């Protein structure tokens, strides 16, 4: 008898010290379908997938593959059973090259099995990169890539395994529309070949675009599984959060007063090989959006302002003064902060606690005497944990044990905590759920009302359009167009970001 399911999970329970992450969850996957898994930050989505992929052992419950119960006790076992996973927090070795990462653990071998077959792995890796639409050298080291590029390397790595079950944990969180299109193309092709795909995302619009069935998790429990065709978005949101929620935060606009002070001004800014000619300005109490494709130089610009990348030509003015030698420490003292795009390597310090992470950039301000007072530190942290609704069972929990979205909130909290005058947000809501996203948007709005200025980089166009007072479009390291908020539209921005056809600006 042929089992109609590739995977069945029955009654899965999993507890961590202090948290019950999963409580009696059922889930299944048929060949050739895309089964979307949604839920708030910390609902247990990643944990469930880590159990299926052999990274965690369930406390109780069964994993059934093709009708047979199995114990999934190691990632290797999952790989051999045809299950491959794209982790939310990537699993790449930064010091190795793109090619080495793709084939890590399963390098193509020569006949004698002794030596790696370089020729085969090279040409295979090349094909994979082309398939996922990633334009980097095979010998580039992964640590030099941006987050979106790392995401695509993860995808290539997962594809190289020829799996029958492919788990994608928030694959689109860092991607812009172009990459998402090609990802969806790959998904459709794979499902056509009978591969089953489990797809996790906080971009709920994608549920209807790519999904066949959808399962909602809330607080570690399954709330229901439905055919995508039978549900509307609002209903999904209600199931996720347990109440009605206006999905988006809408900024209440105040007409901009003229003559507000210029806070950040970049003039013909160049960074060797990465940027040529970025010119823009950010005024007091303004949110300026920076739109563009992945790799267009937005992140590099933020890093140049923050003193991490050396400026080769042009200049930066902050608060009316020309910046000469900048480094993060000085800039923070001046009141400038950068919420980095790469939360795993640059945002959080994984093995330190929530508390230590949130106060990390404010220690000098909070404790001018150099002595850390626990009570003050705890109170300060608690304020931001409450404000951002960071889900953690204690302030002393190591950040690496938080869910992805909650880690992102810790990074945001760190920079809110340091009371700045200009905050550069690079993908501020990457991986956070709808509710938390609206919350972060509301906080940004509060900040600009208080006179703080914000430069926001985001691949999520609705976010850029919804939040910005002005928008600059960046293409190949240049600012190619400036939009006032009512001139901009999704199509216009995409057109300028892609360049190419009739680009009269």
């Amino acid at each position, binding site marked *: 008898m042929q089992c109609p399911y590739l995977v069945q999970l029955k009654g899965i329970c999993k507890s961590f010290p202090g948290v019950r992450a999963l409580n009696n969850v059922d889930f299944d996957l048929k060949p050739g379908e895309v089964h979307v898994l949604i839920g708030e930050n910390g609902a247990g989505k990643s944990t469930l997938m880590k159990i299926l992929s052999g990274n*965690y052992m369930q406390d109780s419950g069964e994993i059934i593959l093709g009708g047979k119960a199995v114990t999934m006790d190691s990632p290797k076992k999952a790989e051999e059973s045809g299950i491959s996973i794209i982790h939310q927090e990537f699993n790449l070795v930064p010091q190795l090259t793109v090619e080495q990462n793709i084939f890590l653990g399963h390098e193509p071998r020569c006949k004698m099995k002794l030596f790696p077959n370089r020729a085969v792995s090279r040409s295979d890796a090349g094909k994979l990169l082309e398939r996922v639409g990633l334009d980097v050298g095979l010998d580039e080291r992964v640590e030099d890539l941006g987050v979106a590029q790392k995401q695509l390397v993860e995808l290539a790595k997962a594809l190289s395994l020829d799996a029958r079950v492919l788990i994608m944990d928030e694959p689109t969180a860092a991607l812009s529309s172009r990459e998402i299109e090609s990802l969806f193309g790959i998904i459709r092709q794979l499902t056509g070949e009978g591969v089953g795909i489990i797809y996790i995302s906080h971009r709920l619009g994608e549920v209807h675009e790519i999904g066949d069935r959808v399962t909602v998790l809330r607080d570690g429990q399954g709330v229901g599984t439905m055919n995508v065709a039978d549900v509307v978005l609002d209903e999904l949101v209600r199931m996720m959060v347990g109440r009605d929620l206006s999905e988006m935060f809408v900024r209440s606009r105040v007409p901009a007063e003229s003559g507000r002070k210029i806070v950040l001004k970049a003039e013909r800014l160049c960074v060797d090989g990465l940027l040529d000619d970025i010119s823009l300005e950010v005024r007091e109490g303004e949110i300026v959006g920076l739109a563009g494709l992945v790799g267009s130089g937005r992140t590099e610009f933020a890093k140049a302002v923050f003193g991490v990348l050396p400026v080769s030509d042009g200049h930066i003015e902050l608060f009316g003064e020309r910046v000469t030698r900048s480094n993060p420490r000085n800039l923070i003292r001046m009141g400038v902060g950068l919420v980095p795009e790469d939360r795993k390597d640059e945002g959080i310090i994984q093995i330190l606690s929530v508390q230590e992470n949130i106060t990390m950039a404010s*220690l000098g301000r909070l404790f001018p005497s150099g002595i850390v007072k626990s009570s003050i530190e705890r109170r300060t942290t608690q304020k931001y944990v409450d404000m951002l609704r960071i889900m953690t069972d204690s302030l002393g929990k190591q950040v690496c044990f938080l869910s992805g979205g909650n880690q992102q909130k810790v990074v945001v909290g760190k920079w809110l905590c340091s009371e700045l005058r200009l905050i550069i947000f690079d993908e501020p809501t990457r991986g956070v759920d709808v509710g938390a996203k609206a919350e972060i948007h509301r906080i940004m709005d509060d900040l600009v009302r208080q006179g703080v200025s914000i430069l926001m980089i985001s691949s999520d166009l609705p976010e850029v359009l919804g939040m910005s007072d002005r928008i600059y479009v960046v293409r190949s390291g240049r600012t190619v167009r400036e939009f006032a908020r009512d001139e901009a539209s999704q199509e216009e921005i995409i057109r300028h970001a892609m360049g190419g056809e009739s680009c009269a600006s």
Partner: protein
Amino acid sequence: MTKRHLEGEAVRAGGFASPRTFSSIMSRMAGLLGLFVLLALSSPAFLRSQNLINVLRQASLLTILSCGMTLVILTGGIDLSVGAVATLSSCMTANLFRVGQPGSSVLLGVATALLVGALCGLVNGLMVAKVKLPPFIATFGMMQVARGCSLLLIGGNIIYGFRRDFRFLGAGVIGGIPVPIMIAAAVVGVIWFISRKTVFGRSVYATGANKRAAMLSGVHVDRALVQVYVLNGVIAAFTGLLYVARLNAAEPGFGDQLQLQAIAATVMGGAAMTGGRGDVTGTAVGALIMMMIINGMNLNGISSLWQQALTGAIIICAVLAENLSQRRK
């Protein structure tokens, strides 16, 4: 919002960086206790107060030295030069100022030693933080230089016969408790405070745990590194003085094995060589465990030839057990 988001005071926050650090210290304490019972059972002599004090006294110098090493390892580095620096600074003091001679100044002698230690540490720190040499290489070089200097300074001679007030530091007893034990307790306390309760200490942990994120959060990573190596140099020099005071002799070569013992005690104490994880209290327990093992072997008449091999094997097993328990979920 949801019931699982805990509000206000409901959220626990310990004095320890994380529950895990706490539990790992507890497990080490349990190990210490187990070892204690084992030794007490194996040899009646172990429990005699004279023997217990002896173990503590032997562990005290190692503990002090390992406190500095712990800071270095917390930054993700290593310092191979501490043994040689301890030797050099104390030989220099012994030679130049003849602490032993009547009329010479103990204070000046001690100050010189600490200054030499600080200088060696400064060079180490600059090599690591500014020149970006791997700590292993930078401090290996320093070890050789310091060894060479000690030999140049006093050749193969042994300088002995020091003033009483100086020897008191290493061999004195107050109220039945040897002075080095008190000094060690004080050093552990001070270093614990520095590492856990100051902004500098926080920079040390942050630097070791994720240098890049620390730097991007405005932590003065380079300065923290230099300070840690300087502090470690001073502690090494101070330990060297205590050794000389205890043995009443200074000779080149007495510290040759010290850096390895300090690294072993730190790792036994639960610090990760990759940085950012560990605690000086754990290190103190680690040093104590090492000394108790040696003491137990002595009491049970195990030959010194076997002792080295056994100690090595025990260290490996302890760290292995720790790693395995960390990996289990």
